[in-house]
């Protein structure tokens, strides 16, 4: 399990990184924390011609608050964000979900943007980004654009990112007044990819549920405030719509059951919290 050969560029600046991926297109891969990419390199599932390391780019290191969102750049490691003072106040959903992302050791290296760019349908960070209706900030040598999370994730490890673009940052909307957030997941072991993960955002008018691990990308649904059988029906429809698959860890039926059960649990929790802060 050794990687195939590749060239390596430790980019000192954003421009250097963007120029490299502009020149090499699909042959180039960005590496940040490496926690998703390097296993695939070792297994030779991917054989890029060039790796562009963005972890030494000073300007991509520090998260900043901007227009009601926390903008987390490509170089921010998961552990740094989890250790951020008041993160549970700023981003309660992410603070609840991050401890489920891998282990202490992988969070110390892995980045948020790396997880988003990798687009594993079971991953927690893409799920939170979708649940919060966040944005992905993409930049190429020619242009910069922002894509809604819902539109960014296309399928299993497939995103809207063009070959010459870098996920420069993600924008995570900060806690909104009168809004409740909840997260829950079921995995085989602690730290595993979720079999099903659910993230809920509920305010006075609407409830939003995002589900990971079932469809080929994190998928969200919005409803007016529902409860009782109306909520059951909505969750049941969603469970069937996601097209759950079978694998060695879980059956499709189990995944649908978890969508119904965890979905209800997190929506109720978030609704309760929303009621509390509306006081």
């Amino acid at each position: 399990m050794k990687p195939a050969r590749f060239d390596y560029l430790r980019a000192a600046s954003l421009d250097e990184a963007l120029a490299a991926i502009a020149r090499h297109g699909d042959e180039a891969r960005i590496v940040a924390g490496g926690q998703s990419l390097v296993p695939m390199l070792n297994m030779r599932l991917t054989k890029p011609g060039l790796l562009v390391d963005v972890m030494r780019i000073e300007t991509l290191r520090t998260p900043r608050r901007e227009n009601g969102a926390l903008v987390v750049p490509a170089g921010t490691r998961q552990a740094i964000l989890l250790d951020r003072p008041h993160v549970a106040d700023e981003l309660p959903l992410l603070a609840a979900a991050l401890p489920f992302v891998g282990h202490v050791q992988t969070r110390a290296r892995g980045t948020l943007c790396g997880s988003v760019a990798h687009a594993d349908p079971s991953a927690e960070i893409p799920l939170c980004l979708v649940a919060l209706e966040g944005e992905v900030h993409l930049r190429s040598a020619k242009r910069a654009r922002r894509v809604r999370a819902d539109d960014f994730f296309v399928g299993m490890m497939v995103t809207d990112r063009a070959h010459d673009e870098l996920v420069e940052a993600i924008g995570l909307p900060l806690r909104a007044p009168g809004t409740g957030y909840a997260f829950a997941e079921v995995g085989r072991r602690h730290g595993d990819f979720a079999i099903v993960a659910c993230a809920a955002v509920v305010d006075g008018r609407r409830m939003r549920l995002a589900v990971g691990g079932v469809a080929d990308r994190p998928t969200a649904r919005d409803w007016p405030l529902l409860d009782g059988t109306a909520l059951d029906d909505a969750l049941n429809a969603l469970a069937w719509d996601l097209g759950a698959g079978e694998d060695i860890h879980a059956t499709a039926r189990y995944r649908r059951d978890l969508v119904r059960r965890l979905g209800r649990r997190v929506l109720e929790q978030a609704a309760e919290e929303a009621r509390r802060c509306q006081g």
Partner: protein
Amino acid sequence: MQFAPDEASEEPRTRKRALGIEDSRFVGQSVERVEDAALLSGRGRYIDDLGHKPGTLHAAILRSPHAHADILGIDAEAARALPGVVAVLTGHDLADVAGPLVPALRAAVDARAIAVDRVRYVGEPVAVVVAQDRYLAEDGCDLIEVEYRVRPAVVDPLAALAAEAPVLHEGVGRNLVSDRTFRYGDPEAAFAQAPHTLSVTVRYPRNTGSPMETYGVVAEYDPSDDSYDLLANFQGPFSIHAVVARALKVPGNRLRLRTPPDSGGSFGVKQGVAPYAVLICAAARKVGRPVKWIEDRMEHLAASVSATNRVTTLTAAFDGEGRITALDWDQVEDCGATLRAPEPATLYRMHGNMTGAYAIRHLRIRNRVVVTNKTPTGLVRGFGGPQVYYPLERLVHRIAFALNLDPLDVIRRNLIPSDAFPYRTATGALYDSGDYRRALDEAVRDGGLDALRRRRAEARAEGRLYGIGFTAAVEPSVSNMGYITTVLTAAERAKAGPKNGAQATATVTLDPVGSVTVQVASVPQGQGHRTVLAQVVADVFGIPLDQVRVTVDLDTAKDAWSIASGNYSSRFAAAVAGVAHQAATRLRDRLALVAAAQLNVRAEDLVFAGGRVASRTNPDAALPFARVAATSHWSPGLVPDEVGAVIRETAFWTPPELIAPDEGDAINSSLCHGFIFDFCGVEVDRETGKLVIDRYVSMHDCGRILHPGMVEGQVRGGFAQALGAAVYEELAYGEDGAFLSGTLADYLLPTATEIPDLDVLHLESPSPFTPLGAKGVGEGNCMSTPVCLANAVADALGLEAIDLPLTPAKLAALAARGEEPAPPQGRAAQAAIRPGDRTLRGTGEARVAATPEAVWAMLLDPAVLTSVIPGAHGVRKLSDTHFRADVTLGVGPVKGRYKADITLSDLDPPRAATLSGAVTGALGNGGGSGRITLAPDGRGGTRIGYAYEASVGGKVAAVGGRLLDGAARVIIGGFFSALARRAGGGEARPGLLRRLLVRLGFSA
């Protein structure tokens, strides 16, 4: 960890003397391990930490992506041309120097270390690339092209028995390689007379020990005397040394096996190094240089070794009080693609104790061994025990529920009585010692069973799913070398000659300054043998622990060993520590003669204690131990003639109780028999199906405990592995033989956050058959815990049958009340998927502007195919309906080059055609077919309908159904979407692919 001198009362001291140790300062104490300082400082010497000879080359192994296929050709030209690659060796290239590994059973199975013309499991070696370093060797593997013709595979042991099943080894003619029936007592009468009978059928799944260190081999061949020097983290030599030497066609003394000083764990699994030892030795011979191979984790999971999976139907005859009078075992053992020595040992290891802890006198046993297209099996901790105790202890629980009795009472009623030891079982084992009822009673009392029952009652009152399970098990240790011959008939055994015994050996050496070295052939895999041997020998000589140094790295060219030497069947404490004690005692007794001559006292009056050899009656008459020990080096003239040189003693010991199977197939398969009684309380979460272990109590009687800390470590370690086997781990295969557990994200080992509290209790019934009274202890929980948990789950959910692993998805389904909520109106439910069926299915429809005739023409046009086969680099037309192409397929970053073979059939122009394709490449292989229908849409265009079935195997399947099955779907879907796009006259718009996939059911 204090280890104060044992100044206890005279009574225990007397007992210890009776067991052979005069002054037990260390034995029985949890002294700190002598191994640990080096291991904690990064100074371990594992196989990959040792330097190797300059010029050593590195090997990587290309492995089969198919479960069953003929090898039509291997093109290694590009790999051989790669700078840094020294050789590419196929099965044919090595056939003259590497013969088959002979199994324990005469059967015409092909058991080679590398495939020749045919592969029979995913991961089977197909070629070895030898290069300057491992990276280059893997580069070489990527460049080899193998052409396979896929054969149908069989993975289920019962399916393998069917007349129409694909046959793995034509020489055998069928997949059943052994079928023996045994009869003990009068089972027919017992069944006829019994008021009740009951059966359970169990499918025990595959798992493995997964040591953290993988296999490693460094081999060199010396043509000047036709000999091999082999360094391997093998746990033998034991019987396998002979098998490896024979495969390499050299006598045993031309195969020098050395093992590294440290091993990163085995749990039986390192036995499977043997075929790789053959393979790398043969490669080294071919390239004329030393070759090193360190297995990687994906190789290890796919193709190292697995415990057997087994289908068992067990029937009991019993009375109204649950007393079992007879058992009828029907076992179908699945040894995978071939019988790899010492298989089918897994099936026979337990033969003497098929009645477990119970006094059952009448048995019928049918043992069948089958081969299937899965990795060959071998030693895994527990070795045959879990497969036996699972049905036996499930059955005991079932009997209790059937009679409305407490399972604990049924267990107690059937236990072998305390006064019956040594107890001869119906199948021939001689249980050495024990007090099962007392162990059970003490466990119930000290483990708090009453409190647990209250917790169950409370939980159930709240509507929670809580259950209690029990297991009683006998843990065999120190295998009889002859047990495996029970697979032969008495006549076959007579012809082959009897096999028996369990030779253990140790060498104790005194050096010129009186320090002591112990050498054993026990090949420890982390269990702390060096510490225990130092304890034993230091106590015999009455010297400090650090005056004894133990070496355990083995060299078959120089060290004492026998065919029984090695690390298996929990033989260390019982056999090896005992023989070390004997060697040391013999030296001590002769040292006493040396000292007696100098002190002018009687040797019998001398006592070895406190670093001195002193008269018991006159303490002033004393010599330092070191002085006496060095005498034969410095002053042999002082040694009485009849004593001889007192420098080195090699002792061999084999227990007389281990005799060969008799005419009636009775076999004392193991020397020692420990006892385990476990119980646990578990809760199944209704919402998630997750199993929560509320309390687990494990009572052990492993005879005399030599080192309590290590016994504790063995029990806890075994428990954790058993928990893994019960709940998390499975070496999973698809129906097509694709291997599905290829990474540690798929084969799930428990971590610190999954392990519940474990309450370990002990009783000590010393074995009368071993020198120190000790028995094995390391394997017991692997035998008892899986079924104990299953019994508790069955109690919680009110189940009659449950198989492992106890996954949340399975438990949630079993706990579910009622049907699943139906899909909303107007939406079809997903078709139910058969377990193990990995076929990807899809249907869809697209409308395009071209006429059916135009679309039809496209389908038969290579230029069009080039554009619709995703990533095709040109299509070669072999006939009007047969095409070949090189393609690059990828989803996200996962990209690979493949060779594609496409045929069109069942042509019905211009209405329908079947398109079949197969792709093969380094990342795996896929195959499938789709029926395409074309119909006019009434507006000048065409409605294209398609339905396909496809499957994916090889690396892509092994590294995560979770990640990559979905990716494969996208790739396959890509073909159909491209066809539609092309047929639409290039009017595809961005996003069409995604919408098509949505329609195909790939995503929401």
